[in-house]
């Protein structure tokens, strides 16, 4: 079940990616519409992170190509933003919350130029959007996991991009923060930005995403949520591991059952 679209924001053509001769992504071929909140789902080791890293050119593909806004990556870098996995950096780094968010503005500044008042105001706005204005001067080593994640999202916002790629922004984040961040991402999508999120919780995926990509080394599905989240496709993506999960999904679907309320 792969829906292709006209005038895609992101077009991935026959992409194969390998680490040391071992392919970890096979023949991924998809296109995405603009202004959507897109979820990438799949089990651990399915190649979700690899997919977004190769979209951004961090991992060179073995074959195939990626076009963004109908242009090659290097022409549109300023319009793409990235939220890496939280554990990918050392949070003992001597920087404040504001310092990290300002990093989002460095790309547009160019070589040798320093961020000034304009960049600082922008960073403050972005911190406000993620509800972190109280932590501007805080050292990043003193933040909790959810706060670190929000700082990373604010940094991506400060880039003022049109396409956002986020790698597991909800890992280790509590429910309240998760909902708040999803709300923010929805607003971004509504204002015409495309947000691509690697995610592994199927339940919240059903609630929040407009478009879902299912991945398990191969591309299993890519399309509007209503068409894609079916038991058949979920089983194809998650294999035998889904047994328990499908039961829960069915329960939720059929009875509007909320385990937190009963």
């Amino acid at each position, binding site marked *: 079940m792969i829906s292709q679209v006209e005038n895609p924001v992101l077009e991935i053509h026959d992409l194969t990616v390998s680490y040391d001769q071992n392919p970890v992504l096979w023949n991924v071929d998809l296109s995405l519409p603009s202004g959507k909140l897109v979820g990438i789902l799949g089990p651990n080791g399915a190649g979700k992170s690899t997919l977004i*890293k190769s979209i951004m050119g*961090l991992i060179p593909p073995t074959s195939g190509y990626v076009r963004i806004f109908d242009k090659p990556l290097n022409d549109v870098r300023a319009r793409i933003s990235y939220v890496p996995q939280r554990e*990918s950096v050392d949070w003992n780094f*001597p920087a404040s919350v504001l310092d990290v968010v300002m990093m989002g503005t*460095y790309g547009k500044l160019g070589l040798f130029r320093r961020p000034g008042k304009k960049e600082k105001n922008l960073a403050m706005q972005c911190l406000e959007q993620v509800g972190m204005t109280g932590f501007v001067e805080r050292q990043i080593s003193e933040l909790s996991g959810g706060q670190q994640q929000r700082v990373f999202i604010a940094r991506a916002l400060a880039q003022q991009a049109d396409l956002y790629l986020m790698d597991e922004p909800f890992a*280790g984040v509590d429910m309240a923060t998760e909902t708040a961040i999803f709300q923010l991402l929805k607003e971004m999508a509504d204002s015409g930005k495309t947000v691509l999120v690697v995610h592994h919780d199927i339940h919240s995926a059903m609630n929040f995403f407009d478009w879902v990509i299912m991945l398990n080394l191969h591309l299993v599905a890519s399309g509007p949520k209503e068409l894609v989240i079916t038991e058949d496709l979920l089983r194809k993506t998650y294999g035998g591991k889904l047994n328990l999960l499908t039961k829960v999904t069915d329960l939720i679907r059929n009875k509007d059952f909320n385990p937190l309320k009963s």
Partner: protein
Amino acid sequence: MTFDSNAFLIIFTGALIAISCGFLGVFMMLRKMSMTGDAISHAVLPGIVIGFFVSGSQRSLEVIMGAGLLGILATLMIEGLRKKAKVQLDASIGITFTLLFAIGIILINLFAYKVDLDQECVLYGEIAYLPIDLWITKSGLTMGPRITWLAGLNFLFVSGFIYLLFKELILTSFDESFSSVIGINAKGINLALMSMVSYTTVSSFESVGAILVVALLVVPPATAFLWTKSLIPLLKLTSVLGILIAILGYYLAYWLDSSIAGMMVTVAGVFFFVSALIKGKRPSWLQGTYKAAKPFGI
């Protein structure tokens, strides 16, 4: 005590070298590459010998260029071994610098009849001879100690480099993949930093020697990092430590009639251990990277 111009010159030069090394060392430490500095300081030896052989002089531009090229080569070799051959970082550092250093020693022996350069001079250096090694222009004008000029020039280059590339250095140290995504050339910045380290190493060789350059690259930044968690104070504290180390190192060496460079590093080491004791926690380079527990995926 009357003003002793020799003492002042030695302390001034020592402080300039300690600050230059400290500035670069802060960024090496933040990149977890402190030992790459060690590797570079040894790996430049063949470059120095070849530069010396080509120009016939120990203080020529060729020597600095040779050393710079070897420093870059060492960086590329370390990265190449790690990424392409999947060798651990520490092992690839060990392999690279011992190999290049050994080649340097063989070259010294081969050219021994032509080259007035011995391992001791390269390894230990002697800052105490500084006041008698003067820079005299062609017209016979005495400009003062040559090594002080070298250290001053080096300090200007290092400060300029860090000032101009400040935001790039921070970003590539903190989050390399993000910097690549927004189009900042992380590899290029890294190589530029390594070239500066090579250049600083060579320019400080004659005064403090290769081993002690490493200490100045690593110890003052690590000490300062025990006291502060923000970058600008970290750089400032590192330079204050550099100046203190130069002053105390000189007078203790004078008092004990011992090696000035050796004493400077001993003072740096004492500063570090006292700081570690006072701060009463494990130094950050022992803690490793903080890893958050991930929820189990399905």
